[in-house]
């Protein structure tokens, strides 16, 4: 038995979380540094995983299998394919920035009691979420995945409800109520999804007699496991519902704006850039892998919903008055793209979707974190309260603009590649869908540029004259992200090499082939 690398990658942050939580109340800064170091160490491990992973090799690599609850047929069964590695890397990469960006977000306003240690809790929860997210990217046992898929809700819930924006219109009281509303909404939506999935998980066990994804897929491929069409469809719906809530897909999206609006910017990034990815990832791995027929059966509906998400999210983003809610709706639109790419069942679409998950993570992180810095300076989330920032804080404005341009997927920045792949993939099979989705890029430009214009340009608002520019810590958060955006924009090959084989496998799972071009191009 070789060294359990995958387990280690997840256990490390978990232990880190415990350790951070244990730091005494007075030593707040120590806790922060501890959290940062742990997250960086996790990143190192994740990189090691990525290096040890051979794109050309077996579908699931670095696999580990231990018995856990034989009575339920549950095994601690981990393994990563290219997609898993990519998303694991994304997670491990973003957490340090999130920690760094949230450096002061959880400093207690006044010490309520000696035992009250919000800061330690904040960073411990973040690490806990990281551990669970990583595990859910690694788990190849459906039950194992489900456990962490569900369990990660709890720390997220406390992060949202416990640590809101300092800056809030209507005072601390209103903030608290809105926060807990958002947190409860988040939890109930996802819990409902999760519980319905639980029923499907049980059903899957009854139908397949195993929780091991590879086994089930193999059994289905070899035809020794027959699942009735209706059973498969019901189970698919059970799984898909949970993932659609998490992703989120229209019309199950309404929890996201509340959550992202009320949470602090780093937590908002954690939600949309990391946790929500589990949903789309799971669609790709579990829905398509376990229920290929049902997936195809559901494709039309899913595509329509995805299209609605794209356009609807973008339009609502245009209509927002609150910076963070705007970003949230933009994310909804982007998740529409991801889901679209997954379900058009073309390799361009699915590679695009996977890249999209990564790129959207980075770009949203960049935009949202800068927005967070801005908000923490002015103490307001309302777009109307800003204007002319560009004049007083050019660097902040510049980074914000780049983040925005990434959000509207400007060619040369990472998101463009993925978005275009998704569009091409969609167009190749369903031209109309492709064309409708293309409208998304115009709307994206609209809400991004409107946001930039209203906040950054024009005459400087009097109360902003003293606005300080980005500090070193903040620059250290944003600069690497932007560098990454540009790099992946001009040279995404490392990522695509990682993803392509995995996508090939998924395509073979659903037994789909890319549509052939009309004529063979003259070479």
């Amino acid at each position, binding site marked *: 038995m070789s060294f359990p690398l995958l387990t280690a990658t997840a256990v490390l942050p978990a232990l880190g979380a415990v350790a951070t939580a244990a730091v005494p109340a007075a030593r707040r800064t120590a806790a922060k540094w501890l959290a940062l170091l742990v997250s960086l160490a996790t990143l190192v491990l994740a990189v090691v995983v990525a290096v040890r992973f051979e794109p050309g090799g077996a579908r699931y690599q670095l696999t580990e299998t231990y018995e*856990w609850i034989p009575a339920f047929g549950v095994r601690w069964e981990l393994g990563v394919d290219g997609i898993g590695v990519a998303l694991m890397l994304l997670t491990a990469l973003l957490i340090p920035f999130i920690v760094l960006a949230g450096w002061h977000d959880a400093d207690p306003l006044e010490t309520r009691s000696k035992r009250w240690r919000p800061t330690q809790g904040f960073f411990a929860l973040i690490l806990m979420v990281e551990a669970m997210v990583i595990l859910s990217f690694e788990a190849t046992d459906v039950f194992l995945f489900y456990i962490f898929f569900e*369990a990660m809700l709890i720390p997220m819930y406390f992060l949202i409800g416990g640590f809101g924006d300092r800056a809030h219109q209507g005072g601390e009281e209103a903030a608290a109520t809105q926060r807990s509303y958002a947190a409860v909404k988040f939890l109930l939506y996802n819990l409902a999804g999760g519980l319905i999935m639980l029923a499907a998980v049980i059903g899957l066990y009854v139908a397949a007699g195993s929780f091991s994804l590879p086994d089930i897929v193999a059994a289905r491929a070899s035809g020794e496991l027959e699942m009735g069409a209706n059973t498969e469809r019901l189970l698919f719906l059970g799984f898909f519902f949970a993932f659609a809530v998490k992703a989120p897909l229209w019309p199950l999206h309404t929890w996201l704006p509340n959550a992202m609006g009320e949470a602090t910017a780093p937590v908002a990034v954690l939600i949309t850039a990391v946790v929500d990815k589990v949903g789309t990832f799971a669609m790709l791995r579990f829905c398509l892998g376990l229920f290929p027929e049902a997936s195809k059966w559901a494709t039309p509906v899913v595509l329509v919903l995805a299209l609605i998400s794209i356009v609807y999210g973008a339009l609502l983003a245009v209509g927002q008055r609150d910076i963070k809610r705007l970003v949230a709706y933009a994310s909804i639109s982007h998740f529409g793209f991801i889901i679209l790419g997954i379900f058009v069942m073309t390799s361009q679409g699915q590679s695009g979707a996977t890249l999209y998950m990564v790129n959207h993570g980075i770009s949203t992180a960049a935009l949202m974190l800068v927005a967070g810095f801005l908000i923490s300076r002015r103490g307001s989330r309302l777009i109307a309260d800003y204007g002319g920032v560009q004049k007083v804080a050019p660097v902040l404005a510049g980074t914000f603009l780049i983040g925005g341009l990434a959000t509207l997927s400007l060619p040369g920045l990472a998101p463009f590649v993925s978005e275009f792949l998704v569009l091409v993939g969609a167009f190749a099979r369903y031209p109309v869908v492709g064309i409708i989705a293309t409208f998304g890029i115009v709307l994206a430009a609209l809400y991004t540029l409107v946001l930039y214009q209203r906040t950054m340009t024009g005459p400087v608002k009097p109360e902003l004259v003293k606005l300080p520019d980005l500090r070193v810590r903040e620059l250290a958060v944003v600069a690497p992200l932007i560098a990454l955006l540009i790099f992946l924009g001009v040279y995404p090959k490392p990522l695509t090499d990682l993803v392509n084989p995995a996508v090939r496998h998924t395509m073979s799972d659903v037994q789909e082939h890319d549509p052939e071009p009309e004529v063979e191009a003259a070479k």
Partner: protein
Amino acid sequence: MSASAVHGLWTDLAAPAAEPIARIQAPTIEYAQLSPVLIVIGAAVLGILVEAFVPRRGRYHAQLFVSGVALAAGFAAVVALAVSGYATTGAGVAAEGAVAVDGPALFLQGVILLVGLVALFTFAERRLDPATHGNPVDSFAAQAASVPGSDSEKAAVKAGFTTTEVFPLLLFAVGGMMVFPAANDLLTLFIALEVFSLPLYLLCALARRKRLLSQEAAVKYFLLGAFASAFTLFGIALLYGYAGSVNYGRIAQVVEGTVQEVSPALAGTMGNDVLLLIGAALVTMGLLFKVGAVPFHMWTPDVYQGAPTPVTGFMASATKVAAFGALLRLLYVVLPGLRWDWRPVMWAVAAVTMVIGAIVAITQTDIKRLLAYSSIAHAGFILAGVIATRPEGISSVLFYLAAYSFVTVGAFAVVTLVRDAGGEATHLSKWAGLGRRSPLVAAVFAVFLLAFAGIPLTSGFAGKFAVFKAAAEGGAAPLVVVGVLSSAVAAFFYIRVIVLMFFSEPKPEGPTVAVPSPLTTTAIAVGAAVTVVLGVAPQYFLDLANSAGVFVR
């Protein structure tokens, strides 16, 4: 009426007496196999003697010692029996077939004993209330007979009386509960039922604070309990009439029609299924009342709220364990032949119980009532496992009961800690901001709530999964869906409490969290530990439940 049907009793009298009978053969009693029960009941009797002869000062400690030792010894005996194979291969019936000694019996007896032990600690807690007149006080009335607020009560308090009778009562209740799931004939069932019910009625009436509520709870519980047991008894009578015997195995044979030498009378009654069906329904109803299933649940909230919180904790956990044990045995041993008749009905009961329990809990404002309704919902979940009618059903229910009882006892133990001037502060509004005041207690309670809600990595999830899995395999998929939906609803109010504790500002005049003695601390710690262990590494206990999941016929 034919002469052959006439009973020997009369004819013998008519005949001239033979020479006096030299010897009668006494029934053989397997004392070893009955030892757990005997120990506990014996200790209870001893407790009464203690009350009679030990001076008042010494009673508390004496009682605590006796009960503690008895429960521990009982548990040891259970373990010994289980180890020596009575749970599996050596399973059999004892005491002339009155009591079964088999896996489920021993498993549940073990659970009941442990829960009883933990409950005992909460019973014995004397540091939560400030000492009055220099005498430490527990949560029980100084002198139950004295009228609340009267001079006699004040005098009793001044004299430092304490109702140490609670310990023997607890032991009697535990003893009865231990027999209940092991009962192998209807008579034993009925007696056990009464043996553990009557002490509970009394215990409910013994609260130190809020005595009117306590007495009201006792009256309601008593009257409704007696009412229910009357139905049970009638059911027993009818079953007896149908089968001509109260022995489980015998009845089962008759039900399945695999009985030899059918007497004409038996042939006559056997033909009449109405007796069987009504009788079965009535007995089942009695058990459903004890587990608090809709529509026999209405006593639960009132009694849980009014009873002294330690008693509530004990009732909520141990009673459920015992009652579900008896229900399992009844349905799996006596009435398997009737499966197609009772399954649909139980389906309906389970579904309604889950839904109503979850929905009504949403709008509760008192933590104890909230937990009461949640216990109703959980009864529904367990029923889903009961009707699986397959071995997994039994073992899953056993596991669920073990998991659930410890969560419950722990949760109520936490409730005893949150106090204000009027004793325990059970109104939810007073729990606001508890997480800010004393994060640890709030965190532990949050763990219990999450376990109730069935969040993964807690025992609640493992149990729920086991039960639903069994139900689904038993072909009760719709029931699983209902269960899942209602647990989604249920999640809402558990979350509400957590929100209250952590996300809302503490009120200035809010309650304080009393610093308990090691007793309650142990109780809570045990509860939390079991909750987490059964959640993270349930395998060993699942195996245990699996191996124990076979009834003896």
